[in-house]
């Protein structure tokens, strides 16, 4: 389990001050088999090349900092085990995001979109703290719990071809988070969120490739959330246009 082997770590480098476009650089890294790709990157940073830039922190797949393309697949660097790869591993910044430098991407677009869906509880009924907690049964919690597990690592955006082609698309994580609050028994803000997520750049831009759910390190299943939003939005449309008396 602590056998060592040498790998060739090919990393996409880009320094905006000196490079016109990105280039690959290969490092020879002696790896312990139980390492993850992030460990190999840190080996490079500490021993071979202090100029290599990448984000990371928790090393336990919960902070969401270290998403990279590893052999073309969006992965968390701290959860991509060396033993699952051959002797040549290619690491690139997350697809579909502009490269700031080396493996660091510009993520403002995601943050803006995430904030735009009102990802916070809009209470159905206001209640003072002194009145205690809102009651919520385990079954009601279970209804949305899965969607609370998103760590905002953005692997789903890197996997989603639709986001790559149509940058205006709100994307998997943002819409899933809106769905999470819509499904929460304490929340009454669905109508406010619908304006954003039921729009053209919202859920209808999704063509259900399903790649987001396949790469999600936390099994949030954003693809499922988006289809459920579509179903609910369709029912809204029918209720509004064919049964105007049924709503409001």
């Amino acid at each position, binding site marked *: *389990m*602590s056998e060592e082997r040498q790998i060739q770590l090919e990393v996409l480098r880009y*320094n*905006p*001050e*000196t490079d016109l476009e990105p280039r690959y650089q290969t490092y020879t890294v002696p790896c312990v088999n*139980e390492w993850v790709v992030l460990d190999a990157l840190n080996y490079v*940073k*500490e021993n071979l*090349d*202090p*100029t*290599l*830039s*990448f*984000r*990371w*922190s*928790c*090393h*336990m797949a*919960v*902070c*969401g900092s270290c998403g990279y393309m590893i052999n073309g697949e969006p992965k968390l660097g701290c*959860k991509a085990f060396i033993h699952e790869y051959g002797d040549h591993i290619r690491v690139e910044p997350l697809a579909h995001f502009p490269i*700031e*430098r*080396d493996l*660091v991407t510009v*993520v403002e677009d995601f*943050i803006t979109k*995430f*904030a735009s869906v*009102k*990802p*916070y*509880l809009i*209470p159905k009924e206001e*209640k003072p*703290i002194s009145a*205690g*907690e*809102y*009651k*919520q*049964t*385990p079954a*009601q*919690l279970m209804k*949305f719990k899965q969607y*609370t*597990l*998103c*760590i*905002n690592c953005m692997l789903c955006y890197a996997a989603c071809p639709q986001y790559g082609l149509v940058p205006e698309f709100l994307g998997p994580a943002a819409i899933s*988070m809106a769905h999470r*609050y819509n499904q*929460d028994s*304490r*929340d009454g803000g669905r109508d406010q969120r619908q304006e954003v997520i039921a729009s053209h750049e919202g859920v209808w831009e999704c063509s259900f490739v399903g790649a987001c759910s396949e790469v999600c390190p936390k099994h949030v299943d954003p693809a499922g959330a988006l289809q459920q939003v579509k179903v609910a939005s369709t029912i809204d449309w029918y209720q509004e246009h064919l049964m105007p008396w049924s709503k409001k």
Partner: protein
Amino acid sequence: MEIIQTDIAIVGAGGAGLRAAIALAEADPKLRIALISKVYPMRSHTCAAEGGAAGVIKSDDSLDLHFGDTVGGGDWLCDQDAVEYFINEAPKELIQLEHWGCPWSREPDGSVAVRPFGGMKIRRTWFAADKSGFHILHTLFQTSLQYPSIQRFDEYYATDLLVDDGRCQGLTALEIRSGQMRQFQAKAVIIAAGGAGKMFPFTTNGAIKTGDGMALAYRAGVPLKDMEFVQYHPTGLPNNGILLTEGCRGEGGILVNKDGRRYLQDYGMGPETPVGQPVLKTMELGPRDRLSQSFWHEQRKGNTVSTPWGDCVLLDMRHLGEKKINERLPLVRDLCISYLGMDPVKEPIPIRPVVHYCMGGIHTDIKAATPVSGLFAAGECACVSINGANRLGSNSLTELLVFGRRAALSAIEHLQSGLPDSNDAALAAQAKNSEDRIRALFDKSAGTETVAGLRKEMMATMEENAGIYRTGEELARACEKVAELRQRYVNLGLTDKSKVFNTDLMQALELGSMLDCAEAVAVGARDRKESRGAHQRLDFTERDDQNFLKHTLSYYHPKEPPRVEYLDVVITKSQPGVRDYSGAKK
């Protein structure tokens, strides 16, 4: 240098920083709030906390019991007035979080569920499966998005506080993506920048926990308090230090040595309790310091299991069954399988103690105010002190909330106290000095030292000499070595010369922070000639209330070791007594 005008600047956007920002925005929507963090808020290390947050809510519990557990757990080094405030506010804060949507685990009737935790007389820990910190952080971050007055400065590294006329009036920060310095002019500053566990090589802490906030205040003249108290969490994965929550034991997991003996009964925490029926404040539900110390003794006796990653004991959860583990401890199972290749449903998991939390930090009073006017601190970087010599598990998440909010209220009081006009020229001159300091570090071409080299030496020194058990001799060595490293830091040379996202520069700055913190730990520990809580001396094995029922205060000196002073502990109603974690006496 661009100047950003704001009313209140917050350094750090983890649990405490976000809670403070929301409290400010709610109190007065016209306040300009600058939330400055070296990482995006959801990357903050609050996300890695697993077990839960303590707060009295159930009818069988009482504030007095929470008080007793906290003060006893802290080996009577807690300020009891602060603890009193803390336990009173705790339930309100946890309910507030529930109102903001935190997905707390529930009882069948829909009320919030609580779980038992180490060192507690009664089950009191609110939890969201075993991802409590994660959910708290994301709930706070998402809630903060609805306040337009919270202006975020993500990926800005705070370099220096601006203190003029005895008041803190802002700070300088490096915008990481451009390499440009910015001056934040503020009427008050709240530091909420987390702990410094990365001083040690084997820690549950993420890469970002480098004591920057502590160093920021320390260099501005605020003493660091009780830095020698560093908590080891008893159950970390042996290969990389990943935390397995205390919830594992709270739910009924047991610790055994190589012979299968539940060895905690040999260290005053017995008698043995039935497997799968944990008894509060007994055996596996003893406090963290005692559990970690027992490991050390077992290792000396040769009772540990030898693994490729060193000596371990075993955490056995098999009797909990797959269903309960999946429901209550899903992350723990995932982490064991992913990072160790072992399934807790099927086999005992090798674990060993790992550096987890700094009880010490920026000296504040009960209102989260530091001795420097206009400067406040909350969260792990601060020392109020409610944690004393050993933090009770699940008090830290609550602390973020209670004192994050308290710091915000104090900052507002400070603003309302009628502040004189600022001397802009003086502030600009200070900001310029700060910029020059960073530029000098950045520009220096050929240094004889590297960041990685110095960091490795620092970590090795701390691990060898300032670990679970300490001696005067080792601590003297640690003091000497860290002082030497601080001097050698001057000869640091950076390889990376790009202004854009220069992580070489970042790591150099972080190393500077850690070295300052490490020296405060070593000096404080050397001078505290007693054993108390997480600070255990082999040459002074007893607690010494005569001489050391006191807080250590370390004052910064740029070239020399810190000057140490002592401050009396505030005792209101609980006189120092014996910490009793044996079920037998009941």
